[in-house]
């Protein structure tokens, strides 16, 4: 299956239109005043079309083979050398509409790495025909969709448990038991956490154009929604036992939680600010805002604050399932922080060397 493309660059097109237009008007003997005035006006603007320099542009042809069967799927031809892999993917999508660009994985060799979209065709070319192997990366979702789904679920699920649906809890017990104020506070904090995440996803974070496989979204949602159900069940249970140290434990933990939430928010804003201003050349610096001072000690303070939020929530509710969830989150975030820290070490070596990845001094 060949993809025939009209060989037209923008300038070429404009030149042709101007020429053609004037000629047809002269030929057609302007019938109305409008046409006559157009003719007069356009006459002055006609420039002799510059002799088109027919430079030798070697167009490439990209042959796309299926990675498993090695059969040819299609040939994308007339690929200008200045184009990137993304342009090739778009052309491929026009030829085979079911493979949209974010789903297409192209490799130079059968077991090689997937090529980035920004790679230029010129750099790949050994001859005028380039052979690439195609893998279907599966159904993809955008990052915004991913995060919105992942965070809306827990918000709604927790509220379902909070209102004590009759199918979950025994109605007789639910009605007679007095609800300790910490249960209401926990619901407020939990909702605050996820509403903040949702608002940040919509208004603060600037996601790159990337996508992620649908499988990842299903796994992430299963984890978050599953754990939220589990912890909400115990906190809102009629037989919930409030914390051992009473009001003091609850108030201090709630205060710590709110501070960590604020901290996380300000760090996210600072990071988004940096991406916006395009100033990726230096490590984010602390400002007058005391929450950003953690940048001095730690390279990924957003993970520090998030871990802090969940640990405070655990102490506030004194519920083992929340503790297990917080433990797993801390492990996951430590792994992310370590990866990011390594990246920072490569990019901003001198400043970042003294800092820890997530926990000040320790790690």
């Amino acid at each position: 299956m060949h993809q025939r493309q009209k060989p037209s660059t923008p300038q070429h097109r404009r030149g042709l239109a101007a020429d053609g237009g004037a000629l047809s008007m002269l030929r057609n003997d302007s019938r109305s005043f409008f046409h006559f005035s157009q003719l007069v006006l356009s006459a002055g603007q006609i420039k002799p079309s510059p002799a088109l320099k027919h430079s030798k542009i070697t167009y490439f042809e990209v042959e796309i083979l299926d990675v498993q069967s090695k059969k040819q799927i299609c040939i994308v031809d007339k690929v200008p050398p200045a184009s990137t892999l993304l342009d090739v993917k778009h052309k491929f999508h026009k030829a085979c509409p079911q493979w949209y660009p974010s789903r297409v994985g192209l490799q130079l060799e059968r077991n090689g790495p997937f090529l980035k979209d920004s790679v230029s065709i010129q750099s790949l070319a050994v001859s005028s025909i380039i052979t690439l192997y195609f893998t279907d990366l599966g159904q993809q979702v955008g990052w915004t969709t991913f995060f919105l789904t992942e965070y809306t679920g827990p918000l709604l699920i927790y509220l379902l448990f909070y209102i004590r649906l009759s199918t979950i809890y025994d109605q007789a017990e639910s009605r007679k038991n007095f609800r300790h104020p910490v249960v209401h506070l926990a619901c407020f904090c939990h909702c605050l956490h996820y509403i903040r995440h949702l608002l940040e996803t919509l208004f603060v974070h600037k996601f790159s154009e990337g996508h992620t496989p649908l499988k990842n979204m299903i796994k992430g949602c299963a984890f978050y929604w599953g754990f939220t159900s589990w912890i909400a069940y115990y906190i809102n249970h009629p037989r919930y036992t409030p914390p051992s140290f009473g009001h003091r434990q609850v108030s201090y933990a709630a205060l710590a939680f709110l501070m960590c939430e604020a901290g996380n928010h300000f760090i996210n804003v600072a990071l988004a600010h940096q991406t916006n201003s395009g100033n990726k050349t230096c490590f984010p610096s602390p400002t007058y805002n005391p929450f950003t001072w953690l940048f001095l000690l730690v390279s990924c303070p957003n993970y520090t604050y998030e871990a802090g939020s969940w640990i405070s929530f655990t102490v506030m509710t004194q519920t083992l399932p929340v503790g297990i969830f917080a433990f797993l989150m801390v492990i996951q975030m430590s792994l992310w922080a370590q990866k990011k820290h390594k990246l920072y070490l490569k990019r901003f070596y001198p400043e970042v060397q003294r800092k820890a990845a997530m926990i000040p001094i320790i790690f």
Partner: protein
Amino acid sequence: RRRKGPGALATGYLVIYNVVMTAGWLVIAVGLVRAYLAKGSYHSLYYSIEKPLKFFQTGALLEILHCALGIVPSSVVLTAFQVMSRVFLTWAVTHSVKEVQAEDSVLLFVVAWTITEIIRYSFYTFSLLNHLPYLIKWARYTLFIVLYPMGVSGELLTIYAALPFVRQSGLYSISLPNKYNFSFDYYTFLILVMISYIPIFPQLYFHMLHQRRKVLSHTEEHRKSE
């Protein structure tokens, strides 16, 4: 990418490990036969081989370590899963719920495990020494057709038999209210374990059948070409 095989020291250690395990399961097999001959019936034979069974089945935990260290080219997760399910059945069901120890289903899975493990460990021993008799290879990839369903049936029947006793005694279960707001119902957990056999067993069984076709047909070709 070919994974680097174990070095000489690791191979020596693995040979010793596999020989010890083969010997151990042979002890269990002999113990079963002797107890049967002494008692005259096949009921309640578990008590005669209780200690060696626990010892050698728990010893299989070392195999997870072998995978993690890379001296055995298997997936850590898969091996951990298989070994943990065996250890779970040995300790958390048969040992913990004393009333099921007299059941016949226990004999069913013990016999299946014994025969399978003797063949498996001798297979590994001979493979490591590069002198694998065809009989052992054939046995490993053929007898499972009968032994695997036999073992699974024994395990499921045992767990099923344990259920009422777990319910009655509240074994390993915590209920609300408590200081840490946590609850665990071992009875429900056992039911979930039983249900999990439904998707897992066919997958493993057909995987082994597939392996059988690959390994035994490959050997046939090799023999014909000689």
